């Protein structure tokens, strides 16, 4: 485009004064490079999903959830005990870690005086625990819960171990949700003569519930996909029955998948892919629910 330019200085003929070079190779190369970095993840994701779906295709049928695992006959093997095991373990994980995590978050946000050394220690401790490798939690479960407290390798041990594993995630997410509740609401409540707990229970928590629910779902979806600590807790053998109680033996989906991957026959690879697909669908549904919750109840203060 040519624009009329006033005779100030010495403008290049036919071009606006402030027009720079049209093309900066450095700038655009850099930009493309950055975009390429971002697409590495996306390409990987697409390749992974495509591969898993392709591998799973021959085994995507009701055998997967109707049948039990079998070493000798992969064509009849299924993951029913792992599916039920996952449901059992995750239900109790939720039961243990959600109340504890939310209560801890309330303490840290609403009650704890951050100047006190012990509260700072708790805070530092939670940040550290969030980054402790999951296999270390397996060691905790094995050494302390299964052996020392003699809980054995049961649904209870697995659920307790996974609870401790995701507890920091629940606490951190719940704290964020609580922090998002404006201070003015607390002041209004306290100025009306409400006690601190009345303020928390009747004002802060109802407003923070959507955020806490979102964080909790994401934490549980992490627990569902976790295999390393559970492998250490006895969930490795081919389990031919569904759990019947907290003291049952069990297996869970990721461990069952690991098991099948370790087998050499290709039928088991298809089976593993099918189980992976099932696991990913479960996680997708949970994440979608979390996002829906976040958007549905997003509050405009």
């Amino acid at each position, binding site marked *: 485009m040519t624009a009329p330019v006033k005779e100030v200085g010495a403008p290049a003929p036919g071009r606006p004064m402030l027009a720079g070079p049209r093309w*900066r190779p*450095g*700038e655009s190369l850099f930009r493309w*490079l*950055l*975009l*390429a*970095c*971002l697409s*590495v*993840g*996306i390409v990987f*994701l697409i390749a*992974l999903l495509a*591969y898993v779906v392709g*591998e799973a295709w021959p085994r995507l049928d009701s055998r997967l959830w109707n049948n039990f695992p079998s070493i000798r006959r992969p064509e009849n093997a299924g993951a029913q005990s792992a599916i039920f095991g996952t449901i059992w373990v995750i239900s109790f994980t939720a039961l243990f870690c959600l*109340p*504890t*995590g939310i*209560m*801890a978050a*309330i*303490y*840290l946000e609403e009650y704890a005086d951050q100047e006190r050394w012990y509260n700072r220690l*708790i805070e*530092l401790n939670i*940040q*550290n*625990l969030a*980054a*402790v*490798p999951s*296999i270390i939690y*397996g*060691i905790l479960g*094995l*050494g*302390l819960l299964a*052996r020392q407290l003699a809980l054995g390798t049961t649904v209870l041990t697995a659920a307790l171990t996974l609870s401790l594993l995701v*507890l920091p995630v629940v*606490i951190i997410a719940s704290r964020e949700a609580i922090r998002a509740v404006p201070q003015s609401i607390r002041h209004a409540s306290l100025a009306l003569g409400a*006690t601190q*707990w009345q303020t928390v229970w009747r004002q802060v928590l109802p407003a923070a519930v959507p955020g806490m629910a979102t964080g909790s779902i*994401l934490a549980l979806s*992490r627990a569902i*996909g976790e*295999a*390393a600590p559970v*492998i*250490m807790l006895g969930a*490795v053998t081919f389990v031919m029955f569904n759990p019947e109680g907290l003291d049952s033996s069990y297996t869970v989906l*990721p461990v069952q*998948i*690991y098991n099948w*991957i370790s087998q050499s026959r290709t039928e088991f690879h298809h089976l*593993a892919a099918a189980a*992976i697909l099932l696991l*990913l669908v479960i*996680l997708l549904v949970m*994440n979608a629910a979390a996002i829906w919750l976040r958007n549905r109840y997003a509050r405009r203060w």
Partner: protein
Amino acid sequence: MSTSAPKSVAGTPNRSLRRTRPRYGEAVIKGLLMAAALVSVATTVGIVISLIPPAVDFFRQVSISEFLTGTDWTPLFSDKKFGVLPLVAATFVITGIALLIAVPVGLGAAIYLSEYARPRVRQLLKPSLEVLAGIPTVVYGFFALAFITPQLQDILPEAWALEVRSGLAAGLVMGVMIVPTIASLTEDALSAVPHALREGAFALGSGKRTVSVRVVVPAALSGIVAACVLGISRAVGETMIVLIAAGVSTGLRFNPFMEMETMTAFIARAASGDVPVDSIEYNTIFAVGALLFLATFVMNLIAIRLVRKYREVYE
């Protein structure tokens, strides 16, 4: 208390401001909440007390110097050797490969999201990183073993002799796995850099690339370093990918095309087998676990410290 007689005013009840009834409930609730918060402290204590006694037992039978300098690792064989260096070397090699992928890619993605992407694009691209972070690592392991390794065997010269299980495949996939960790923490650090700093550089006529690389990234450096340290910590602690895709080894080796076993993979493999309680094999798990815990603990503390530093500067 007042010494003068209270003046009664019409319409004003002359109640005292003192507590009419004690509020035990409030104190009980506060105690319960604090107890919940202390569960996290108990977890750390639990980890330490589950690690220490077996580890101490282990070091009664194996000297620390043999453990830390030996180059043969065969605790589950009949001819037992307890040199942890093969595990440590494998951990280093695989973590190094992972970082080679994850640091540049994670930084690039973060700079793009924070400095270049329009809000619309951001909203679209950021969740893809979150999805990547949400995929169970057993799935990554499967993908590395069943897809990446055959591809690599096709691409790489045959002379390099890439084995079916190798440090390379595990490291590459692990690199992608920790991209979201590095990218999201780096992006946090970049967006904490005040806008005035960018505007100042733009006002001097700098282009966007110059501003990003010369101004924003250095200003966020401690946060970026924290992201990388946390990335390393995750790579060192990752189990399933290496357990599935990296294999087993007994000797010290640095060749990424060969099988190798990391600390985490050994712990998982040994603990899932039938090792008798209180045997030397069983205690080995905890000795390696203690080493792993110590290493990641130090890295986590460094990362936390660094994150606090940039938050203090800019918030």
